[in-house]
Structures are given as structure tokens and as C-alpha cells.
């Protein structure tokens, strides 16, 4: 009887010890789109662009291209 209990305890202990050996992916689970805060407006929504996205895009692109000094000096 004691032997059976000891065997059972041994098997249970082994199963318990191996329970932590499972290999699980350690990748972060991203939670996109669960923002809980206040809504924001796009940068072109207010003055001076007043919702004119194309004008804002042009302004940003001009400044963006101005960072290329090869073209800036060449002009």
C-alpha cells in the first residue's frame, strides 16, 4: 500500500516538475487599436491648413526634400 502511494507521489511529482518545461513562443502580443485616451486630430486639421491635407503634404515634403543637401546646394 505504502509502495503504491510512494509510486503515485513520485509520478505526480514528475508530472508537476515537467509541467513548466513546455516551450511557448515568447513573442509580445501586440494590442493595436486599443487606445483608451482622448481622440486626436490630424496635424492638418487646424490652422494654418484648416483641413487641407494636400497643402500640408506639400509643405512637409518640401521640408523633407530640403534635408538632402546634394540637391539643395545643386539648385
Amino acid at each position, binding site marked *: 500500500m505504502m509502495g503504491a502511494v510512494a509510486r503515485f507521489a513520485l509520478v505526480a511529482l514528475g508530472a508537476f516538475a515537467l509541467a513548466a518545461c513546455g516551450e511557448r513562443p515568447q513573442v509580445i502580443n501586440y494590442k493595436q487599436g486599443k487606445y483608451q485616451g482622448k481622440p486626436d486630430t490630424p496635424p492638418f486639421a487646424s*490652422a494654418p491648413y484648416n483641413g487641407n491635407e494636400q497643402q500640408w503634404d506639400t509643405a*512637409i515634403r518640401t521640408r523633407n526634400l530640403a*534635408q538632402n543637401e546634394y540637391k539643395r546646394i545643386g539648385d
Partner: protein
Amino acid sequence: MARMKFLCDAERCIECNGCVTACKQEHEIPWGVNRRRVVTINDGVPGERSISVACMHCSDAPCMAVCPVDCFYKTGEGVVLHDKDLCIGCGYCFYACPFGAPQFPQAGAFGVRGKMDKCTFCAGGPEADMSAVEFQKYGRNRLAEGKLPACAEMCSTKALLGGDGDVLADIYRQRVTVRGRSGEVWGWATAYGAPGSGGQQPPPGAAPAGTPAPAGGTKS
């Protein structure tokens, strides 16, 4: 729609800290908070490289994933911002960020942390654009003024570029062609690597095979 990114060309950075100063001045950042900083690798050793580091506004931002109160959001331009009214200053984002971008002002005795502060790509936050409240919480909203981040526009050697990723890639590609070698685009693979690629996406304008390595180049 532009996808805003930063690009730091380690071949050009001269560690002048102009970007750090520009950022501090533009947003009136308090003492102890550094939204941007310059890191030098192998300082004093021939071939040392300096890199300007701030929030890279990652494609899959880890800070967004770990935030327990979901205070982060990504704008249509790809800028990662957060709502300070929600932030509880837990610091999880700091541990998750590969660039050490989140900063925490000391809010009291015994090292009590305040609400997280980080680079906003000069895009403010979820308050009315260019309002006094927005400036106080997040700094100036240059993007709403049709301008690019102050750090990038201030950079004297144009080592730090900021703006639409496609345009930055074009600029860098031309540089590689002119100088004949690639150098390092530090942090690009980490910040903008394709999901699931393990950050193995090559940097824009990577040197073609057979291009000589930069003389005295260092790897951290």
C-alpha cells in the same frame, strides 16, 4: 500619406549635441528629462561612432503592447504618441523600449515617478493642436505647423534626418552612391523591420555586394 521616421547616419554624426539642444529648447523640456540624446560607441577609440537616439516611432511599437492602461496611439502619419492624462507612470514602456526613449520626471520625494514623457516627433498630443495645454504637456506641435522635428531640421551635418520614410530612404541612397559605402543606419531594422522578420530588414540604400566596408568601422 507620409510615414514619419527618423534616420541617423552614424557616418555623419559629429556628436555636437545640436539635436539635443534643439529638442530641449523647442519643447522647454525640464531638467532630468532627455527626449533625445547622443550616444557614442567606442568613445576615444579610432573609428568611434556617435548616434542620436530618441523614440523611433516604431512600426510595431513595444511600448504600445505593454502599456497596462493603453495610453499609446499611433497617428495616421505613423507617429507614436500617448495621452498623459491616462499614463500612471508605471515604467513598463521604459523596460519594453529598445531605445530607452520613455523618460520619467521625478514627481516627488523617494524617486516617485511622474507621467511618462518622450519624443513626440514634434507632433504634440491628444489636445487641441498648438494650444497652451498641448505645449505644456507634450511640447510644440511643429507637424501641425507644416514643419519637421526640430532636432532633424537643426542637425548641422544632416546626420539626423526626420520625415517620410520613403524620402529619407532616397536621400540616404544618394549618399551611399556618392560616398561609395553604406555605413550604419542605426536602429532602422529594430524600429521598422517587417513584423515577424526578427528585425532583419536591410536598411534603405544598403550597399550592394562588393562595396568596401567603412574604414575603421565599429560595431557595438
